[in-house]
């Protein structure tokens, strides 16, 4: 499913005393099957963008259009949004009830619900037999997050937006989310991952969109976006450590391309430089 935003402005409390322009003149197209990371400083408009793409807000001006939805009459029903800190919206008396909520709202037959809930729980790595009757409120933070994500996956969205899904998770949780995002994309879903962790974005996404003050500042493959160090700095962002390392080596005289953004990429560049034996005076 493809999503197109044209000249989108979003203004909170328009005409009010505390009027805030959260998005300004945003033009974006995200194609079917893309895996996009959206990064930006707090308050740059990331969450607002997510709500617009999910059809929960109407833009103050401009258009948000979905093409290729399996439900052309209600295209936004094919968009799944995992909110920032989604565990604040838990309400179910059991994990089953919690996860089934979305599927039930879609009109899934009662006797088919357990099948869908089981599938969704397995997708997020939770054992359905252990979790089924447990209260979601009794789970650990990481488990709650997984239940919330299952509650969105159960609706089988074609486009899935995750708003800072790793916020507040430990290292293991972060790694797991990165894997999940990759897998969802490999299954054929379009994925938009909002984060402010550059290394995460560099590892996983094939395209990175940078927001600053409600405008799109940069948009391109991670190698290209993270090479714009000064521009990123102006948005209070720092390229991932691996990218900074190869840049620093280049600055100190190494004749390398310095386009790596991941640890693996940086290792490649350094090794091939060493192998070519042209370290120069600094070696």
């Amino acid at each position: 499913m493809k999503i197109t935003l044209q000249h989108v402005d979003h203004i909170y409390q328009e005409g009010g005393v505390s009027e805030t322009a959260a998005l300004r003149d945003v033009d974006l197209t995200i194609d079917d099957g893309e895996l996009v990371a959206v990064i930006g400083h707090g308050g740059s408009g990331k969450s607002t963008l997510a709500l617009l793409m999910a059809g929960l807000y109407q833009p103050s001006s401009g258009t948000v259009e979905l093409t290729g939805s399996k439900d052309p009459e209600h295209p936004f029903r094919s968009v799944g949004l995992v909110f920032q800190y989604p565990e604040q919206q838990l309400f179910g008396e059991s994990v089953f009830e919690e996860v089934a909520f979305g599927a039930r709202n879609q009109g899934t037959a009662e006797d088919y619900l357990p099948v869908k809930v089981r599938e969704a729980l397995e997708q997020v790595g939770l054992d359905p037999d252990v979790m089924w009757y447990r209260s979601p409120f009794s789970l650990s933070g990481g488990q709650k997050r997984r239940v919330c994500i299952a509650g969105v996956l159960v609706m089988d969205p074609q486009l899935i937006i995750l708003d800072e899904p790793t916020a507040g998770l430990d290292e293991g949780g972060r790694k797991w989310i990165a894997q999940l995002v990759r897998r969802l994309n490999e299954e054929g879903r379009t994925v938009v991952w909002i984060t402010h962790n550059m290394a995460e974005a560099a590892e996983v996404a094939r395209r990175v969109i940078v927001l600053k003050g409600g405008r799109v500042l940069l948009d391109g493959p991670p190698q290209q976006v993270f090479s714009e160090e000064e521009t990123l700095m102006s948005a209070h962002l720092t390229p991932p450590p691996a990218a900074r390392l190869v840049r620093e080596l280049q600055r100190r005289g190494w004749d390398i391309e310095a386009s790596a953004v991941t640890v693996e990429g940086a290792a490649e560049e350094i090794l091939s430089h060493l192998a070519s034996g042209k370290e120069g005076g600094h070696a």
Partner: protein
Amino acid sequence: MLKEKLLLGQYYPADSPVHRLTASCKILVTIIYMVALFVADDWLGWGLLAAVGLAAVLISKVPFKAIWRGMKIIVIFCVLTFLLNLFMYPGDHVLLTLGRFRLTAEGLTYGLAMALRLFMLVVFASLLTLTTTPIQLTDGLETLLKPASRIGVPAHEIAMMMSIALRFIPTILEEFDRIVLAQRARGADLKQGNIAQRVKNFVPLLVPLFVAAFRRADDLSQAMEAKCYRGGAGRTRWKVVKWQSRDTVCLALFLLLLAGAILERVL
């Protein structure tokens, strides 16, 4: 959004004579103004009070826009009040007959007056919250309740409860808006089904709201205990607000206004 519709008006910072008045004076004046609105019984009185209200808004430097924002629902209420009185109020001077309903001159006057009273009442109350910070407001309330604490009224506790409520109402409304959005993203439809079903539709909204409210209450009580809060006894203030001569003048003017309204009614 619910938050924008419900609030009378949040503090609007400005440097004006109204802002400079002591909070306790403004609370008293607001009560006096409200009483006067209901004591006054002819157009001279209502017109004068409306003019006073308008003057207060102008002096306060609060833009009309800021007041209007909190008033939209109230206006619907005013119109309803007007229509109800228009057709229900008994009168002899029939202007129009619509089936079973008779539209009388008395009904028209009374309906307009009730709508105007209600409107000015809310404008004035909004002005109080727009020109007084929540802290000043609760301090003012505590000052006014002080005399009553001798007969066992927990003045400090009432004021503290009000200040906590005032502080958290916007946050909780904001939270509620977020929860509504999140459950809508999961396909929730509040307007679906019969009455029992509709009540059930609110469960996914209310449970997270209560969970959040209790979490906040817990955090706050821990923070207060950590700072050794022990209620009102022996507490001193950082900023002591003193009653000024301008407060006396303002209060006297409004008492005069009220006296005028009472005199006009009985004479």
